């Protein structure tokens, strides 16, 4: 059993785990996120949107690796939009980037422990935390295998393990299900629900079905703005029989996207 720190049991002094107001973020010279308003609390939030909608840029801004070009961004009650110190907010963050690089000669355990160290976890908690994270993603038997020997799906799971090693209060996963087989996908959804009990999880994906199955809240962005936020049933309700898609959720997604492109906001 892991010990629970005083910081974890302290009541939150902020209303939203993630709060963005009129957020603007540049990807190169282009404003990929342009006036986005967003509020999130604990739970699994699915981020949908067409390619180029600004999902990855938004994820990077929330992960604090990109500095917003405008607007206000607060993570765990800390302002992370300006020149201020990011340390406090980053300690509570977990992040899996879309293109996730690694050191091929590290073992999974070494890699997860190294990331835990960079996340400034107390030294004596690192081996236990790394082991637990590796177990949660189902990589126990490969914990001491070198990263270069892992398959695509295993690498993705190692990436999820490093993201959750510090028990983050805000967990950002950019396309985490790429390379996972159907059974691993189901396990992953289970893990998400488990994590969301006491943290705010944002999962960016292009698979509408993943979102419907695992998310309590659906977010949709188009051209750098939030065009929909609501539960999966509300998403489904937007779809009509004539909308494109193989499932009610996909038809709802197409309907919302069409409406956003025509200039309206759902």
């Amino acid at each position: 059993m892991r010990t629970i720190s005083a910081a974890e049991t302290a009541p939150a002094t902020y209303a939203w785990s993630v709060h963005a107001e009129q957020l603007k973020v540049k990807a190169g010279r282009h404003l990929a996120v342009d006036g986005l308003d967003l509020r999130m609390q604990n739970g699994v939030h699915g981020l949908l949107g067409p390619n180029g909608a600004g999902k990855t840029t938004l994820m990077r801004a929330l992960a604090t690796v990109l500095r917003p070009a405008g607007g206000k961004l607060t993570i765990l009650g800390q302002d992370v939009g300006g020149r201020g110190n990011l340390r406090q907010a980053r300690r509570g963050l977990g992040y899996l980037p879309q293109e996730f690089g690694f050191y091929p000669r590290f073992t999974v355990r070494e890699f997860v422990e190294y990331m835990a160290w960079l996340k400034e976890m107390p030294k004596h908690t690192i081996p236990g935390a790394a082991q637990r994270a590796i177990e949660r993603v189902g990589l126990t038997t490969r914990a001491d295998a070198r990263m270069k020997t892992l398959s695509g799906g295993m690498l993705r799971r190692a990436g999820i393990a490093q993201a959750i090693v510090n028990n983050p209060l805000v967990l950002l996963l950019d396309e985490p299900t790429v390379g996972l087989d159907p059974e691993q996908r189901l396990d992953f959804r289970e893990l998400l629900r488990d994590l969301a009990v006491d943290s705010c999880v944002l999962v960016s994906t292009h698979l509408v079905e993943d979102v419907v199955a695992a998310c309590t809240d659906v977010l949709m962005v188009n051209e750098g703005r939030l065009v929909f936020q609501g539960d999966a049933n509300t998403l489904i309700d937007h779809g009509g029989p004539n909308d494109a898609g193989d499932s009610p959720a996909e038809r709802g997604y197409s309907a919302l996207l069409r409406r956003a492109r025509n200039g309206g906001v759902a």
Partner: protein
Amino acid sequence: MSTHPEPTVLARYAEGDPGLDDAAVWTVESHLETCPDCRARLTGHLTGDTRALLETVAAGIDRGIVAGPAPVRNPRAWSVTGRRWFTVTLAPWLIMTAAMIGCAVLMNVLEPQMPSLVLLLAPVAPLPGVAVAWSRRTDPAWELIAATPAAGLAMLLRRTAVVLAVIMPLLVLAGAYTGTSIALLLAPCLAFTASSIALGALIGVHRAAFVLAALWAAAIVLPTLVTAELPVVLQSGAAPAGWTLVAAVTTGFAVARADLFRRLTSGN
């Protein structure tokens, strides 16, 4: 520590007596967590069912231990430290720089009448290492690292310290061997390192290192080789103090603007 529960309460707890309310159970449990004596007493009250359950669990754990993966050996401490202080990509650049210092010493010995190549090389010797130590291109996990609380100027300075810890002793050795002033070797070396970090805050450390090295080559190294005379910035006298001042000012700027190193593109 709270007072030890009554033996009767402990017995009822062990039996799972429904008459014991939640508050009482909670009190006993929180006490048991801290009191080995009462835990020992509790075992005396166990019912047959509980014993059977515990035996099943113990057998299951034994089976798991036998069938599971072998325990991990403790990684040697130095390899963990090494991983934390070195970026994997640093080694080849440090070896290359060491080889260049070796060549400069050799030239000095073969052509003693020429201006000291060791002196001319010392300021820019750490720059390849510094440039590589802080680069998105050479660190595959850069985006992951950039999102951690440890990312930032402190990390850059630590990696720079590793580079200097290799380069500076080599310069001291080269200086001692060729009879060159150690202060004239180390002060410019520190000044160029600090300047590349400070300028790197604005244009990227990689680019800054390249620009400074190119400036040095064009403004000092080439004229010196042509005229065969050491420039005033590399002559003893006020020069070491001047270089130290440059190092202090540029370090001060970098520390004051530490916020410029905290993002994905910072200093890259």
